[in-house]
């Protein structure tokens, strides 16, 4: 199940969000050693996890446990590219009502590699569906240079927004990807997912 979780419907997804922020701490702090804030010792949450953020979350249908997620923020609100990494954009940070930023792509460490790849495919499709629902045409983001090849190998057509810059010894890159019904169509075929994956409400299993 893939959900779009925002400030408005967050109470219906307390468990999904709780396990997402825990996994983000396990991945970004424990494993990747990012210097990012930790809340209560177990959650990774930063200054951009506000009521403006929408999370695309894949959760286990049985337990509701987080499997994969990403964070979307409208570019007209405070977001990482504009507020922290603007120097990565050669021609200024892309900003507009149809431009949103995608960050904090997180795959649960408890998934095997094949499961993780499938879960990533689901949240990617979920993000495309959410984007088309909201009239988004461009998703921006940033990455370590070394992750670039992984994103490309995942089949996502990215465009760099400026030369890489070193932050704490690692080359960072700002990038964007254009989304459209055509991209969604293509990626549904590529990921072997015929129909819509995204929902805004918890799905209640029909009684047998």
């Amino acid at each position: 199940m893939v959900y779009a979780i925002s400030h408005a419907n967050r109470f219906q997804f307390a468990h999904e969000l709780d396990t997402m922020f825990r996994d983000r701490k396990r991945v970004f702090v424990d494993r990747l050693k990012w210097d990012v804030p930790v809340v209560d010792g177990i959650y990774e949450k930063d200054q951009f996890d506000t009521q403006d953020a929408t999370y695309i979350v894949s959760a286990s249908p049985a337990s509701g446990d987080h499997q994969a997620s990403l964070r979307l923020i409208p570019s007209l609100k405070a977001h990482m590219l504009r507020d922290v990494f603007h120097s990565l954009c050669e021609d200024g940070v892309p900003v507009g009502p149809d431009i949103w930023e995608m960050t904090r792509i997180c795959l649960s460490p408890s998934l095997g590699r094949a499961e993780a790849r499938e879960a990533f495919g689901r949240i990617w499709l979920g993000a495309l569906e959410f984007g088309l629902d909201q009239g988004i045409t461009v998703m921006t983001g940033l990455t370590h240079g070394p992750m670039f090849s992984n994103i490309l190998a995942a089949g996502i057509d990215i465009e760099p927004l400026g030369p890489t810059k070193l932050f704490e010894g690692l080359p960072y890159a700002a990038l964007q990807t254009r989304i459209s019904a055509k991209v969604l169509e293509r990626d549904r075929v590529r990921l072997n997912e015929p129909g819509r994956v995204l929902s805004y409400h918890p799905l209640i299993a029909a009684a047998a």
Partner: protein
Amino acid sequence: MGKFRDIQDFVRLSRDSRDLDALRNLIEDTTRTFGFRYFLISHHVNVLGPNVVQLSNYPEDWSNAMRKKSQFAVDPVVRACQKTAVPFLWSEVGRVISLSTAQKDILDGASRAGIGAGFSVPVHIPGECTGSGSFAVASGRSLDEATIPSVNYVAAFAFEAARRLLLRTDKLNFDVDALPGLTERQLDCIVLMAQGKSDWDAGRILGISQRTVQEHLDTARRRYGVGSRAQLIVRALFDNQIGFQDLIHT
């Protein structure tokens, strides 16, 4: 001198390359704009076949000499790419790996063959052997380091364009789906074992019991269908499920 706009054009054009020759010409044109004479975009394997990414305009004599002597395995650039994920200047490769005499000879030989100062960008894709993109100026010319933050993109995008062309013709011999699915926990156990830790030590580090570590490693061996723990390490390394940097930077 090239501008970032040239890189953005390269990104767009490389995606639409019809074949490997067109891509090769495109890489050559773009990198020359930035003052580079030579490039090599490749997977790191010793067998040069049509089944891996391999695009280059290195001097023929030099490529043949490297191949004949089977020096690929000791190539300092290849070794360094397996140890780092960050682009590096060849003049600073000694910071990434300690250079043997044979490796110093390779660097000197490249220079005599006309390949001057250069830098390399490691390309690590899960499920595939390591690769890289390298760019060099002609011998005697100086390398403008200010071009690196732009030119390093050519490695990733050229590599991906080549992969897509090969995948389209079923020539790329990596099948990620055929990879045994290992959990992060199992990979943690393999890395600690490969670092020489006992099951007991690994258990202490991971906060699980010695018995559980043993079970993780047994399951991983079964998934790979290998009998020994040494084979398990080799297979996990070859498939890029774990990296040399996991084992060496402890």
